[in-house]
């Protein structure tokens, strides 16, 4: 049996996840063939891996993307030249990887301009909405557009948005819009006037 210093125990976790170099991998494999102590270590590490691989207790909600959109929108309004400067910096970047990643970011953000987030000077009725956690961003967007609504603030800590619905129509039509939103249970979990 080899002494403790010769056990490659410091490499075993990465032997398990398959990220060692070929040389290290072979070194560990050779050792494992003759060391029951390290094979026990591998068993323990595999038990740890099984637990660590379990899905997380919660996933980021659909609101995460809306929140980021809102913040990017506010950021761009605060400093309108930011996106342009960013674009110019891309042109100057020499590394292909930089262009690849940030080019994707810039292109995609520029395509979001049909999605209004921050409030404008539009007159209207403000209602509080909590969207269904399973609703997709596209379903929420379609629902809001159909109702002629836009997000004013949110999400708050409880996932509540304030949305503004244009009040160009009479009260009965306006209430009917709110009722239709309430009935759209796939998208709207809760809605009430502010």
């Amino acid at each position, binding site marked *: 049996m080899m002494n*403790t210093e010769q*056990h490659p*125990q*410091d*490499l075993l*976790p*990465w032997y*398990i*996840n*398959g*990220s*060692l170099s070929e040389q290290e991998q072979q070194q560990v494999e050779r050792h494992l063939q003759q060391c029951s102590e390290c094979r*026990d*270590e591998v*068993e*323990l*590490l595999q*038990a*740890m*891996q*099984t*637990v*660590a*691989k*379990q899905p*997380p*207790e*919660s*996933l*980021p*909600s659909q609101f*995460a*993307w809306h*929140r*980021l959109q809102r*913040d*990017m929108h506010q*950021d761009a309004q605060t400093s309108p030249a*930011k996106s342009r400067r*960013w674009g110019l*910096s891309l042109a100057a*970047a020499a*590394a*292909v*990887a*930089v262009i690849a*990643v*940030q080019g*994707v*970011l810039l292109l*995609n*953000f520029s395509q*979001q301009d049909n999605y209004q987030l921050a409030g404008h000077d539009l007159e209207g009725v403000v209602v509080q909405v909590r969207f269904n956690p399973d609703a997709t*961003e596209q379903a929420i967007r379609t629902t809001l557009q159909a109702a002629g609504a836009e997000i004013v603030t949110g999400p708050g*800590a409880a996932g509540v948005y304030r949305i503004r619905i244009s009040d160009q129509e009479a009260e009965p039509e306006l209430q009917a819009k709110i009722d239709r939103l309430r009935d759209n249970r796939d998208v709207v979990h809760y809605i009430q006037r502010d």
Partner: protein
Amino acid sequence: MNQFFQRHHRSVYTFALRRLNEPADAADVLNDVMLQVWRGADRFAGQSKVTTWLLGIANHKIMDIYRKRKRHDHDELDHSCEDQHAANEGFDISLAQDAAMVKHCMDKLSEAHREVVHLTFFEDMSYPDIAKVVGCPPGTVKTRMMHAKKNLKRCLQAQQAA
């Protein structure tokens, strides 16, 4: 940006959640990381994988939250990148077969140890990549994992004795 967000948001969120144990804080970290990326404050230099780069940014945000919580005292030694040697003690491997107990003991690991365990076994990162994320030498990453393993064994033995 949506494409980029959809591709990477789970990694960032899960990394933050497993370390902070608080969904609201993990959501804040996710938002801050993606916003920082969009602002171009941290540029991807192509010297590592995108995930390594993103989790490196997330690591700074998480440490900020820890500092605010003032809960980092007992982890101070680990976060200082100080190197230590872990003892290799006798251990009954049959204890590792109880998944619930293993999970219980993994949850009790220090924040710095859970970080390395998560990056190794959830993200399947190499130890050099983990070193980039946590900002320590690769040797420290290995040492932290050795300590995590040692503490896990101690906890399993204590659970059995109880």
